[in-house]
C-alpha cells in the first residue's frame, strides 16, 4: 500500500516538475558546514580515473534490490563494475518515475558515455561505480555519512580513482 502511494507520488512529480521545486523550498537543509571540503584536481582530464556515483537506485540485475519497505530508505550501496552494460542494470526506487531511465540508464548513470570517454582517451579510465537509493531520511542519514559514504571513499582510493561524477535521481 505504501509502495503504491509512493509510486503515485513519483508520477505526480514527473507530471508536474514545478512541484519538485516547491518541495525543495520546504526543506530545511541540516548540517550546512561553512567549510566546504576541497581536493584540487591534479593533472589533465586525460589523466583522471573517474568513477560514477548515483542516488538513482541502480543495481546489477543479479544483485539484491534496494529495501523499499523501510520508510527511512536503504542507506546501503551497490557496486556497478566499470564494464557493466546498460542491459546488466536495473532500478529499484519507488520515489521517482524511472520509466525513462529504465529505457536509457544513461540519464541517471551515464555509464555508456564514460566507457566511450575512456575508450577515446578523453579520460584515463572509468573506475568502479556505485549506486545508492536517494530517499534517505532520519537515522539513516547518520549511517550514510558515518559508514556508507566513507566505505565508498576508501574503496575508490584503493582503486586509484582520482575524481567522481555524482548524479541524483
Amino acid at each position, binding site marked *: 500500500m505504501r509502495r503504491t502511494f509512493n509510486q503515485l507520488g513519483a508520477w505526480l512529480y*514527473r507530471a508536474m516538475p514545478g512541484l519538485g521545486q516547491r518541495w525543495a523550498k520546504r526543506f530545511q*537543509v541540516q*548540517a550546512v558546514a561553512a567549510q*566546504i571540503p576541497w581536493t584540487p584536481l591534479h593533472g589533465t582530464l586525460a589523466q583522471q580515473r573517474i568513477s560514477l556515483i548515483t542516488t538513482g537506485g541502480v543495481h546489477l540485475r543479479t544483485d539484491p534490490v534496494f529495501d523499499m519497505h523501510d520508510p527511512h530508505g536503504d542507506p546501503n550501496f551497490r557496486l556497478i563494475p566499470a564494464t557493466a552494460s546498460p542491459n546488466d542494470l536495473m532500478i529499484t526506487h519507488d520515489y521517482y518515475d524511472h520509466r525513462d531511465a529504465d529505457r536509457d540508464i*544513461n*540519464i541517471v548513470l551515464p555509464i555508456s558515455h564514460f566507457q566511450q570517454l575512456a575508450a577515446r582517451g578523453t579520460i584515463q579510465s572509468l573506475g568502479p561505480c556505485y549506486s545508492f537509493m536517494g530517499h534517505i531520511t532520519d537515522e539513516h542519514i547518520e549511517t550514510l*555519512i558515518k559508514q556508507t*559514504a566513507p566505505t565508498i571513499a576508501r574503496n*575508490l582510493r584503493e582503486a586509484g580513482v582520482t575524481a*567522481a561524477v555524482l548524479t541524483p535521481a
Partner: protein
Amino acid sequence: MGLIARVLEAAGISTVSFFLLAEIAQQLGIPRGLSVKFPFGHVLGEPDNLAQQQLLINHGLNLLINAAQAGTFIQLPYRWKREDWPRLLEAQQADLAQSDAQ
C-alpha cells in the same frame, strides 16, 4: 547526494555533482556543482538524446577541470524539451576547442 560528495572530497577525491534542485545543493556546501531544471529521474535529460546527455556531461567535466575554489556552482539555463541540443553541443565543442588552443 551532496553529503556523499562532501565525504569523498574530504577523503581526497575530487567531485563534481549534478543537481535538479539548486536551492538544496547550494545550502549543502558542494565542492563543485551544477544544476538543471529538469524533472526528477532526468538529470542528464531524455532517454536516447545523445547530444543533450553529452552536452551536460561536458559541462560537468569542464567544471571538474576548471573550478578553482570550493563551492563553485553553475545553474545551467537549459529548458526541458525546448532546446536545439545538437546545435548547442556543436557550439560547446567549438568553444572548448578554442579554449584548448589558447
